[in-house]
């Protein structure tokens, strides 16, 4: 294991992490809901009284890089994966997060913060699968 010192940004990561934790915590305190992006997204496929709120949260997420980008220079996202891989990955992420009822935000951030055993299992498994996938793609394929 060799640390990539050139790209290592501990302070920005920690600050961003604190903001993520604060937003999820305020939502739990203010509305009694768990901030899970995959749940909010799949909720777009349903029509009920909460639809507008779910859409509003996702809209905020889309607008965030525009608002933040007005104050700080943000690098544009670089996606190395080709189109076919991006689509296959999106399908797997959508299918998997619904089957597991949560993703990095719902299980990873909120679940671990709530000391949920179920979320700890989910987080350990998706991290392990992601690490294994990157290993295969970058070092074996």
């Amino acid at each position: 294991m060799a640390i990539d010192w050139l790209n290592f940004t501990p302070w920005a990561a920690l600050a961003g992490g604190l903001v993520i934790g604060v937003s999820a915590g305020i939502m739990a305190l203010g509305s009694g809901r768990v901030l899970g992006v995959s749940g909010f997204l799949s909720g777009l496929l349903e029509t009920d009284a909460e639809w507008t709120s779910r859409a509003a949260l996702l809209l905020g997420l889309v607008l965030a890089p525009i608002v933040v980008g007005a104050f700080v220079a943000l690098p544009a996202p670089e996606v190395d994966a080709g189109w076919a891989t991006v689509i296959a990955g999106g399908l797997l992420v959508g299918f998997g997060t619904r089957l597991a009822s949560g993703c990095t935000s719902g299980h990873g951030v909120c679940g671990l913060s709530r000391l949920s055993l179920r979320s700890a299992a989910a987080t350990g498994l998706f991290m392990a699968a992601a690490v294994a996938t990157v290993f295969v793609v970058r070092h074996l394929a």
Partner: protein
Amino acid sequence: MRPLFALSIGLLFGAGLCLSGMTQPTKVLGFLDITGRWDPSLAFVMGGAIAIGLVLFHRARRRLPAPSARVDQALVAGSLIFGVGWGLVGFCPGPGVAALGVGEPKAVAFVVAMLAGMGLQRLFAETSIAARLLGGSISTANDCTGGVTA
């Protein structure tokens, strides 16, 4: 939940994703590549989020149902499938949606495919074959959209 409240939370959460580097697939993959040139930054994102999350969720514990300890086949299979997709692209759901805001064309393809995958899972869960294969353990509960447990 009021829409304006939800919008503000989405903005704040998205700002955190942008600042932390989570919206950069190359950075995310650099974190997941533990045997290559490893960028440990994302461990600090999780650490920071959970450090403050522990405090705030503890305060909010009466507002939320007690977390479930149930680890079933659906949770295991779903998490593994999600992890493979995450490792292939470097986007998980939140950063994928946030990257729409900068007009990244591959983020559009990713989010559309993700919605299709969610729709497929719903179809799959509704077929009796799938229910038999997984011993009827497929949960249609929405852990992470308020209400039920995560």
